[in-house]
């Protein structure tokens, strides 16, 4: 009986640790909403991670738009990390044109994923902004993204 209790306790402990370690991103099913323009071939022909990140950016545009990008795209006029994935948005935040920049940019991809994961973990926009800035500011110049209040 004692052995069973110990095993049960260990099992619960393992489950708690595993749940804590699992990424919030992997808990979600990333499917593009029908309101958006379909993903173009330049995205579809790339890795699963890139495809998934484009869907994330379209699903949580306000989150990705609230963090700066540090890849250097500021020289191209980007205003936030969202510009690396989305070129134009129509009514109801529906993506009407995609941007190819994100498919070649590890920094853009990582920033977008980190921001969405933090959002899903319940962090405030300001906290997300602070954490992203702290993590990536050494990589390059930031886009002029205003700090959320």
């Amino acid at each position, binding site marked *: 009986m004692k052995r069973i209790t110990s095993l049960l306790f260990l099992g619960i402990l393992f489950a708690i640790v595993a749940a804590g370690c699992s990424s919030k991103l992997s808990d979600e099913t990333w499917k593009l909403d029908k309101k958006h323009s379909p993903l173009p071939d*330049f995205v579809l*022909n*790339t*890795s699963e*991670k*890139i495809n998934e*990140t484009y869907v994330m950016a379209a699903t949580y545009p306000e989150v990705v738009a609230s963090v700066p990008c540090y*890849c*250097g*795209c500021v*020289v191209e006029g980007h205003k936030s990390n969202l510009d690396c994935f989305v070129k134009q948005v129509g009514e109801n935040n529906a993506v009407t044109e995609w941007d*190819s*920049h994100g*498919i*070649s*940019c*590890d*920094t853009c*991809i*990582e920033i977008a994923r980190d921001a969405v994961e933090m959002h899903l973990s319940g962090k405030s926009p300001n906290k997300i902004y602070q954490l992203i800035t702290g993590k990536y*500011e*050494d*990589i*390059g*110049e930031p886009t002029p993204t205003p700090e959320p209040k």
Partner: protein
Amino acid sequence: MKKILIGFYILIIIGIIVCISNSGIFNSKKSEAIAAGEKIYKKNCISCHGETGKGEGSKTGTALNSQNFLSNVSDKDLYNYVKYGRNGTVMPAYGPRLSDKELKNLVSFIRDWQTKEIEFDVPKTISGDPERGKAQFTLYCLNCHGEAGIGKEKMGTALSNPQYLKYTTDKQIWIDAAYGREETRMGPSLKGLEGARQLKEKDINDIVTYIRSLEK
């Protein structure tokens, strides 16, 4: 008597070798070169490559302290990069400004940032289809490295630069593309590594072949 003398001489020579090797004379010479190189670095390189050699960030220069970079270049390569610079970019040729000894001291200082030697898996022959390579380059590299590899300041190295292509081998370009440079904007591209692009060896062969074709 002759044999005893020869034995005596051999013992003396061994003794001298042991004394010199224990004296640290070579190490102190190396330290002197590093210290001299540091002064040159602080005067000429720090504004673009930063105090720690990390470069990038808001700086224009490449990350010289990257372990991937340092494991991929020899002292001679570093020497050539500094001496001949990159025409048409912000990296000037230091050949006319620094003596041979100063260049070597600078290389010693940069080399001192290397803390480990990384072995890279590289195909034995790097040969591909330049047309397909161009398409792959346009898709995955152009955003940072510019049209036909012309480069973009604070984003990507000018890959079509004549000095870059002259002093960088296909193998080195392949390693840079496949493994990237840690903690910089240039992530790994090879499938199976952590980067987003996940390119096959063949894709990278094609890209390298295309980049080499830009040499005029």
